[in-house]
């Protein structure tokens, strides 16, 4: 039955509907069942890993790539729901808040399976509109409104650019199916209009990924929006962007002009992001700039354009959401009243909550790319893929950027472990700590035993570049 192949999407849609009912009825008991339902969603996504097929006039495809990313999205949504569940006293976390969150995740799940540009665009917008509403939802905080406006304005502008690019592609190639597009030539000499169009269309996804020069919203939005929303915006939509970029990168064969553009954007993004992060004091803002840098790292795999490169990008994006969610888990847990923690607020965290300090250390060292974490393994795959395609300079830029980033990531650990503070010990429920501990353990596990995840990613990569 075809319908069973769509269980991950249907399960999440079911959650959206249940949340809608809860919001209409004004129920406040959402947090007691939502994390469990989202957790079951992960199991459903695992069960759906082997689903294959095409539907809706071949615009919607279930393949290794889509199922891999659906699992990642389901996992990410479950984690964010879990983090939010630890904040039962927060008045902002209403059923409609979670409904919008789930709707955005659902849009991203659809995005993972779209293999046609217009459908893809629709799914992207579905996930984006929910976020436009979510970002300003932060009590009476004026910065949230500013963040919302920035996100919408940037988003609208980039959407327009992407649509403009789409029109060029359609005009030049007379088709919007990725498979048909991949079969034609994408060298600038053969189809200049299409290459320009593709570059513009990619801009829409670069915006989601916060890649230079589409990253200006990122630190402001992270800083302005609620911590739980920031945890979501910083991770899951990026997965959506990566899945589409991986799919579109299959159009590119190694050493095409567009890959050089991707490589240059990646290099600027990682350097700019890391340099800007060096001077940040607000932890969320720091993580915002760091995500700009990480978007640059992902470009290593996409620029390589090979099966190994695409697999590396897929793996790294999953590793990124794991480690970033662990970092945001700490941010959300230490700010009891939902305020933005600064580096100084991390002082003495080791005394106040040793387990949180350790989770933060694992996340920070993984973001640096220190073994044996998922961040290291992911970076190793990216570097290998880029080197194999001759992007030596990009690899050198990436490793030098890793060296730059050490300072500010180490700053997080330094404040937590060596800073002095008179603040009282943090009381954190054991269940919440176990949740964070599991996240940290996953970061380590994906680094020490990467084979199962990498094989899934490799399957997706090989399918696009047989």
């Amino acid at each position, binding site marked *: 039955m075809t319908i069973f192949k769509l269980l991950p999407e249907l399960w999440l849609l079911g959650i959206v509907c249940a949340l809608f009912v809860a919001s209409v009825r004004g129920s406040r008991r959402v947090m007691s069942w939502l994390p469990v339902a989202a957790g079951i969603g992960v199991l459903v996504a695992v069960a759906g890993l082997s689903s294959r097929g095409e539907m809706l006039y071949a615009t919607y495809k279930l393949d290794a790539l889509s199922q891999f990313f659906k699992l990642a999205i389901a996992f990410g949504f479950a984690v964010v729901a879990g983090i939010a569940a630890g904040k039962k006293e927060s008045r902002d976390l209403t059923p409609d808040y979670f409904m919008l969150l789930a709707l955005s995740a659902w849009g991203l799940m659809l995005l993972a399976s779209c293999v046609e540009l217009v459908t893809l665009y629709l799914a992207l917008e579905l996930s984006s509109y929910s976020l436009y509403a979510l970002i300003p939802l932060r009590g009476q905080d004026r910065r949230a409104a500013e963040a919302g406006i920035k996100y919408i304005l940037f988003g609208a502008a980039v959407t327009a650019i992407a649509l403009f690019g789409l029109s060029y592609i359609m005009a030049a190639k007379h088709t919007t199916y990725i498979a048909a597009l991949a079969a034609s030539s994408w060298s600038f000499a053969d189809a200049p209009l299409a290459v320009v169009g593709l570059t513009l269309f990619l801009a829409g996804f670069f915006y989601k990924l916060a890649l230079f020069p589409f990253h200006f919203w990122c630190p402001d939005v992270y800083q302005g929006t609620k911590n739980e929303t920031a945890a979501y915006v910083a991770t899951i939509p990026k997965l959506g962007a990566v899945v589409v970029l991986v799919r579109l990168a299959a159009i590119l064969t190694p050493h095409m002009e567009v890959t050089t553009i991707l490589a240059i954007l990646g290099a600027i993004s990682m350097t700019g992001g890391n340099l800007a992060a060096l001077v940040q004091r607000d932890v969320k803002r720091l993580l915002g700039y760091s995500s700009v840098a990480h978007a640059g790292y992902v470009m290593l795999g996409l620029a390589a354009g090979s099966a190994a490169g695409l697999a590396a990008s897929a793996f790294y994006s999953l590793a990124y959401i794991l480690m970033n969610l662990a970092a945001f888990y700490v941010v959300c847990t230490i700010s009891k009243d939902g305020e933005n923690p600064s580096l100084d607020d991390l002082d003495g965290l080791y005394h106040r909550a040793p387990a949180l300090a350790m989770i933060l250390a694992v996340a920070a060292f993984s973001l*640096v790319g220190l073994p*044996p974490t998922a961040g290291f393994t992911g970076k190793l795959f990216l*570097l*290998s893929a880029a*080197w194999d395609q001759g992007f030596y300079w990009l690899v050198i830029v990436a490793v030098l950027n890793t060296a730059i980033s050490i300072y500010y990531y180490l700053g997080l650990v330094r404040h937590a472990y060596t800073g002095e503070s008179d603040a009282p010990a943090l009381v954190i429920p054991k269940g919440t700590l176990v949740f964070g501990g599991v996240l940290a353990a996953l970061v380590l596990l994906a680094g020490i035993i990467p084979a199962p995840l990498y094989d899934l990613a490799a399957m997706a990569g090989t399918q696009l570049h047989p």
Partner: protein
Amino acid sequence: MTTQYGFPVVTMLIVLPLVVAAALLVLRRNERTVRLVTLGAGILECLLALPLLSYAPNGPAFQFVEQAPWLPALGMSYHMGVDGLSLYMILLTALMLPLCVLGSWTYISKRVTEFHFCLLLMTSACIGVFAALDFVLFYVFWEAMLVPMYLLIAVWGGPRRRYASIKFFLYTLAGSTLLLAAIVAFRHVGGTFSIPELMEKSYSFRFQMWAFLAMALAFAIKVPMFPFHTWLPAAHVEAPAAGSVLLAAILLKMGTYGFLRFCLPLTPAASVTAAPVMIAISIASIIYGGCIALGQTDIKKLIAYSSVGHMGFVTLGIFLFSVKGVSGAILQMLNHGITTGGLFMMVGLIYERSHSREITDNQGLGKFMPAFMFLFGLFSFSSLAFPGTNSFVGEILVLIGAFSSNTWVGFCAVPGAMLAAAYMLRLLQRVTWGEPSSFKKSWHDLGAREWVTLIPLALLVFYIGLAPSLAIKTIEPSIERVLSVMHQKNQAMGLTSDMKFTERMRLPASMTVATATDAVRKELP
């Protein structure tokens, strides 16, 4: 997992500290229990390392080989093994764990569980570094060791611990990021991460030069060689006694081990090309370290700077490319670990009593603490390479190698030995016979625990000093293999070295390059 001896010795050595560390975190018993458990783990670790003593010097190069698939898609495997280059470093690492626990018994009073957790992690990672036969695995252990060391300095260190810990972390990690690029490049060119397989392949001169530069930077910082040494004195001075001991005994050796394991066999042409520069830097380190040590008033700083000089001897020995030079270098790696480790422990003991590391605050102890001064004197004499002690053998081998390579190199290195005598004797004279300035009766002489901590190292000083041939016999076959691989590759590239290579190789008449290569092939899985 396939193991050569039916019992995964190396894996057990790595896993045991990890398991105990995890248990410590979960159980969190009282301080005494934590210390006893870690000490027990340390003793067990030493016992577990005993099978390594069955290492057959003339057997195939890598012994105790253990292999299991890790990430077959990228050619990564869990591949461990021991040869003459790594054997003694692994044994030394295992030995240091119980000694560090004993040495910190009363020195560390806060966050005791976490301190021992870090010690155990360090031990595990360090053994992994010396045993890894997969390049990625090596890098994993190489970097994993940074975190516990950073915490040891940052949490249990002296007043400027934050500065020292950040400097240590930034320097070493920044240096090794380029090592990662080199590892990726080797996989691209060699098609594998397996170190024995990579050793068998040849690489273009251009590639070798770039790879050598990337690797040498990481290793030079870790050694540390002048002018990349500035993190070392700060880290040594601020680290707690056990941290300094581990830094001196194990961590610094990773850099020189990296040169031996990777630079010489993988980038032989580049190594020969860069040798004059490396030798010059080594001599600069020897002279610079000695001169700066001479001017120190802080005992720990003095020993830290002396380390720069001693490690200069090690790198000098390596880049002489002669069996004598490299044997001396490896022996010096071991000797420096024993001697400087012992000295740092003793500084920790005196600091516990006087709460000062200044020479002026710790003068005239010979009258009040004769046992302490006996051992301090012993380690000091070893440090200045007094005949009969371990360092003498290593240093003399390096110097002989240097003189037979180039008389001028030998002449330049000799003042280093004289400087060592000057600063160590000056220190010894003042601490033993100087005017007692702040001695209190409460400063008791060495206790039983302190004796137990220092005696193994003192015995090793004599053992290696009086019977060095036992150690050299184990080391030499591996050195000959590395050098013959290196020479063969260089010959294949038409590189004529002016180092009079074969003359100094002390290869037996039957051991031609071809037979040496065959020996290497046989050992490969």
